């Protein structure tokens, strides 16, 4: 009964979405406030209805109601509760339901917090946002209904793919979707602006926090996925340039560019047309990501052709919104007034460089991802585009970008003094060179480019801190004065520093683990010892063990360093009960210097095991960097200047004496 209730709520949501698509926009065109006001209650009821549907499906998973086809296909009664819950979005139908739920939440946020938006803009935004929901609700109800029943109901479900039964992966999709879908608001605002034929600083001021929120979620979502791949897939790779990864990386690149260009638009009224275009493209890339992952076109063009129903539907949605958005853009972009003149050497100029490089990087990833598909469908020729291509094209593009990162925030708007900015970065530059020399001296192997990579990472980190040091006059004024300035810094500025610092830390992690990884693949019999990266590992043997829904063989390695005990690693080979499928659980010892990583392989005839030992230097910095970027975004988001939608609160502590950005 609850299931039918959820199904019914979803159909009602579709009807509400249809009404919300038409009525507020019509009201905006007619300048009728009553019609425009329809958007708010509609957006709220839409989110409530979809939430009911979502909770109904979650209920079916929690109580293991196998009369629901979706539950029977993806869950199992022996599964721990957390994975029964995460199982809701661990499959196609449920994940699409989560997709529209988040979409509706973002729409409702405009309805609830958008009181100070111009009424017509808000009405148009709500209509556009709802049209996206309408398309995806239709998609769910027609091709991917999660509420279909089975009769007779099976005794038990088929279970969730065991490699997906993992805490990081349980919450990877919700974050990823909040990122993907969060960009829908930027899209809706862009289309609404094009419908009205004008934008202003208030527009950018509204779009920026939502884009920032989406960007933060996407950052953490991608980082979670990468972390999961690192410890679960069994050899410590953390990024594979896999099309599925690229599908989430492209909106991230475009979204990062959008964040920066919206800044120019908000502060200086410049780059308006470009920002609108970028807003449309960022969400289009999110839609494309959904299409690539959901249509099965990636696994093979043939699989897509064999069962094209869903794929064609998502493709049509993608083409409709991308094409519609771009057509409207082509038609109306001329009407948008451009303002704000600036010279190439200026904050705006730096942000333009950021946008040129990020957009080019994004196009490179796009081409690399889609080229094999396009070539095969056009000519039948099959080629592979893998990591070597992206390392040769994308990575070099990031070098100039990273070199310029510390400069940007130090340049003044309109026209800046490059020499003065460089002067403030002397300390950072010296530190970076020092690190490079030390890296050259200390390391005996690894590519010659790696020390340069470290230097760039340190340059970005130290540069970010230099900018804050300059702002608070560290060393130029008494410490108490610097402290006062620090506490009064706008949070957006602190957020920028943190986010840039995180980027630098991530670069160091990437360089460290890519260039200086150690690896030993060998046969080990109980009692044997192997040394790697200064650690000695003694293999004590392997024994079977039983978990809640799997059996496993656990290997035991005692780790010492210079004779002192460090830790015990227990890598395991698991076989899950349902579906019966083997997975490998790595044994990992984390330290600041890097991760010791042990994988247990198959038993050989003579009682020995195939064993793989790795040392991944600095690898944690990759995810710590991403986490710092996330928190940088969060601090920036808490800046009251960005919270246009929040209730106006008088600041008791006006930041006197600190130049506003």
């Amino acid at each position, binding site marked *: 009964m609850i299931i039918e209730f959820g199904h019914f709520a979803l159909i009602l949501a579709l009807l509400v979405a249809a009404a919300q698509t038409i009525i507020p926009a019509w009201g905006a065109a007619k300048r009728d406030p009553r019609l425009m006001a329809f958007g708010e209650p509609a957006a709220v009821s839409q989110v409530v209805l979809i939430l009911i549907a979502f909770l109904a499906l979650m209920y079916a998973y929690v109580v293991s109601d196998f009369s629901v086809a979706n539950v029977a296909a993806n869950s199992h009664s022996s599964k721990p509760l957390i994975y029964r819950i995460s199982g809701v979005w661990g499959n196609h139908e449920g994940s699409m339901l989560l997709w529209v739920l988040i979409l509706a939440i973002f729409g409702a946020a405009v309805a609830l917090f958008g009181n*100070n938006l111009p009424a017509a803009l808000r009405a148009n935004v709500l209509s556009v946002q709802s049209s996206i929901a309408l398309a995806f609700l239709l998609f769910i109800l027609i091709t991917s209904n999660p509420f279909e029943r089975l009769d007779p109901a099976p005794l038990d479900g088929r279970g969730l*793919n*065991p*490699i997906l039964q993992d805490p990081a992966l349980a919450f990877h999709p919700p974050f990823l979707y909040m990122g993907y879908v969060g960009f829908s608001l930027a899209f809706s605002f862009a289309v609404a602006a094009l419908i009205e034929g*004008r934008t202003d*600083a*208030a527009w950018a001021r509204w779009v920026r926090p939502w884009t920032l929120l989406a960007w933060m979620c996407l950052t953490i979502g991608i980082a979670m996925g990468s972390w999961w791949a690192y410890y*679960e897939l069994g*050899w410590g790779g953390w990024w*594979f340039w896999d099309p599925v990864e690229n599908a989430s990386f492209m909106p991230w690149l475009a979204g990062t560019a959008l964040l920066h260009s919206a800044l120019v638009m908000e502060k200086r009224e410049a*780059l308006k047309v*470009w920002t609108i275009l970028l807003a449309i493209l960022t969400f289009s890339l999110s839609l494309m990501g959904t299409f690539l992952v959901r249509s099965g076109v990636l*696994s093979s063009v*043939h699989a897509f052709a064999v069962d094209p129903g869903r794929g064609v539907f998502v493709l049509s949605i993608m083409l409709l919104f991308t094409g519609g958005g771009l057509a409207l853009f082509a038609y109306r972009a001329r009407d948008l*007034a*451009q*303002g704000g*003149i*600036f*010279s*190439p050497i200026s904050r*705006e*100029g730096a942000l*333009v460089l950021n*946008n040129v490089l990020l*957009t*080019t990087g994004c*196009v*490179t990833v796009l*081409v*690399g991802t889609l*080229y094999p598909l396009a070539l095969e469908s056009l000519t039948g020729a*099959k*080629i*592979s*585009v*893998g*990591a*070597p*291509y992206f390392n*040769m*094209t994308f990575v070099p593009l990031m070098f100039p970008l990273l070199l310029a990162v510390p400069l940007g925030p130090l340049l003044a708007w309109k026209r800046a003094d490059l020499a003065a900015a460089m002067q403030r970065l002397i300390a950072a530059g010296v530190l970076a060179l020092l690190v490079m020399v030390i890296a050259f001296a200390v390391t005996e192997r690894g590519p010659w480019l790696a020390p340069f990579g470290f230097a760039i990472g340190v340059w970005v980190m130290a540069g970010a801190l230099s900018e804050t040091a300059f702002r608070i006059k560290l060393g130029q004024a008494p410490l108490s004065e610097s402290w006062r300035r620090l506490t009064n810094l*706008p949070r957006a500025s602190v957020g920028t520093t943190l986010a840039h610092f995180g980027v630098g830390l991530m670069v160091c992690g990437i360089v460290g683990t890519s260039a200086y990884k150690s690896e030993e*693949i*060998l*046969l080990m019999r109980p009692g044997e010892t192997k040394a790697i990266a200064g650690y000695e590992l003694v293999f004590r043997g392997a024994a079977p063990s039983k978990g809640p829904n799997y059996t496993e063989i656990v290997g035991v390695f005692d780790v010492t360093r210079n004779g002192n005990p460090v830790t015990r690693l227990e890598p395991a080979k698991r076989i899950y009960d349902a579906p019966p*499928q*083997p*997975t490998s659980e790595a044994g990992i010892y984390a330290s600041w210097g890097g991760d010791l990583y042990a*994988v247990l*392989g*198959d038993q050989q005839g003579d009682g020995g095991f*195939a064993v793989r030992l790795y040392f991944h230097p600095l690898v944690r910095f990759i995810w710590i960097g991403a986490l710092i970027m996330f928190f940088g975004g969060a601090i920036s988001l808490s800046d009251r*200047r960005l919270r*246009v939608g929040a209730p106006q609160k008088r600041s008791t502590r*006006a930041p*006197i004496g*600190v*130049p*506003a950005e």
Partner: protein
Amino acid sequence: MRAALSRIVMIFVGCVLLASGAAQAVTPQEILPDKALEARARDISAGLRCLVCQNQSIDDSDAPLAHDLRVLVRERLTAGDSDTQVREFVVARYGDFVLLKPPFSAATLLLWLMPLLALAGAALILWNSFGQPTRTSSAAPSSGSLSADEQAALDALLRKDEPGKS
């Protein structure tokens, strides 16, 4: 037609194997005693695609075909082939599809030139934003089609939000 069908079956089998999680990839038995030769083998392997997998190199994959290819690469190296000769040998058997870095050819011209074209394109579009007064920039910014009331409301909003600026 039959070829296409068998390819689908192959991909399917590959995916099943891929989904089996426990990556074994290079096994101790495969490793060559000669360290330099083994390092070259690993290097070549990282650039060769496991044909039945989704975007995995034979170095990372535990599919049986990847194992066969790894052994083949090592056999050729032991026989004295250069890196290029090994790659050519594998490509002769399996086609360009096996290379994770596609060769520069007429078919991949756009693939390799696109980053440069995109760089030029993006730079061109954004170059226009430098210092060129556009036709409306002489008017007060953003006053284009705002009514007096709206402008006042907007100004109030901006003022209220930025106490540091006023």
